Structures are given as C-alpha cells and as structure tokens.
C-alpha cells in the first residue's frame, strides 16, 4: 500500500483522470472531494462490505417455503 501525507486543499491524481482532494480535516474526520470519469464507481467500503454480508445471509438462510402463504397471511 502506498501511503502519502496530504494537507487541506492538496490533491492526489490516480491514473491521470481521477482526482482526490482533501477538502476539510476536522478531528478524526476527513472530507474528500473526488473527481472521476463516469464509468468509475465510487462507494464507501463499509457499504460494499455490508452488501456482501447481506447477500451471503440472503443466499443461505432461507428454508424451502411457500412464500405465497406467508404473503396472504400478512394481509
């Protein structure tokens, strides 16, 4: 892993077309500005991790059940 030190308003450029700016540093929080081409997907890592975990739970937890009966009971 490459580790760089940056100050407020300083930038990092990745691959020539992705630009990350340190906008604000307050206590233990850092606000970042990211400029990237539209095809680059940018997400908070914990959200991606949560989706993976949720998928794993969803794929393996269900029993073989007539979901329709349950749906009717709800009404």
């Amino acid at each position, binding site marked *: 892993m490459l580790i760089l030190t940056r100050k407020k308003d300083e930038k990092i450029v990745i691959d020539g077309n992705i630009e990350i700016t340190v906008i604000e540093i307050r206590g233990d929080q850092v606000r970042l500005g990211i400029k990237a081409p*539209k*095809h*680059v*997907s940018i*997400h908070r890592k914990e*959200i*991606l991790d*949560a*989706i*993976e*975990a*949720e*998928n*794993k*739970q*969803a*794929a*393996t*937890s*269900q*029993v*073989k*059940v*007539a*979901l*329709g*009966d*349950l*749906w*009717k009971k*709800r009404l």
Partner: protein
Amino acid sequence: MSLKVNTIRFGTLEVCEEKIISFPYGIPGFPQLTRFIYIDRGEQDGPFAWLQAVDDPDIAFIIVNPTIVKPDYQIVLAEQDIADIDLADASEAEVFVIVSIRGELKHATVNLCAPVIINVPKRKGKQIVLDNPDYPLRYPVFGSEPSRTEGVG
C-alpha cells in the same frame, strides 16, 4: 441446448441455455457465480421468485419486485450500469430486490440499497449500489418493525 442445473431447493432442473441470465461481475459476496436462472413457482410463492445459481446448488436468492414492498421505489441507473448490462431502453429492464430471512419468516427484510437489474431480452444482470439514505440494506417486508413507518406522515 438444455442443461441440468442441480439445486438443493428445487431438485435437478432442466434448463434451456437461452434462459440463463449472466451476471458478468457475479453478485457481491459471490464473484465466481456468473450464471443464474429465474424461478417463478407462481401461486405458491406469491409475488416472490428465486434467482438460483447455475454453478452452486446451495445458492439461491429470493427476489421480489421492490414496488410490492415499497410502492414509491425508484432508481436512477448510472451510465456504467446501463453499459454493463447492454441496456438500450428502460423498458427492457426488470428490477428486483433480494429478500433476507433471519430467524422467523415474518421478520424478512429486503435490500433496497442494492437492487438487481436484469436486461430481460439480453439476459444480463447486475446488482447495483445506490447512494440513497431512504433505501436501507434491511427494509422489513411485512411491516412488523418500527422502522417501516419511519418517514411516513
């Protein structure tokens, strides 16, 4: 051409190859699973259907049209998502959300944050990630949890 798909829930299914939906990027958590089949058992599952992995008998997701659970559900697809599933027109797309069951069935939740988009004619799919705080990872299907009524009124 048809092929046999082994599943732990539905036994061995004979499936036309054209019926296979390809997920070029897999599904988060299962990047190796790129082929799925859509299983709709009709009446017995009500509005729910299944997305069964072709290459892993154990893995099947319960899916549902999100508007069944949240009538005002709306998504905006990113350009890259549209390109990834070769979508030419919005009318070609079907949107589903994945159902998660923890313990009792009545506590089932849907993942509104990461819907599954399928290009129906081209049979290509992708699970996308939305950045919308109104669409949580676990939204109750049956409205038994207090969070269901959050933001109403």
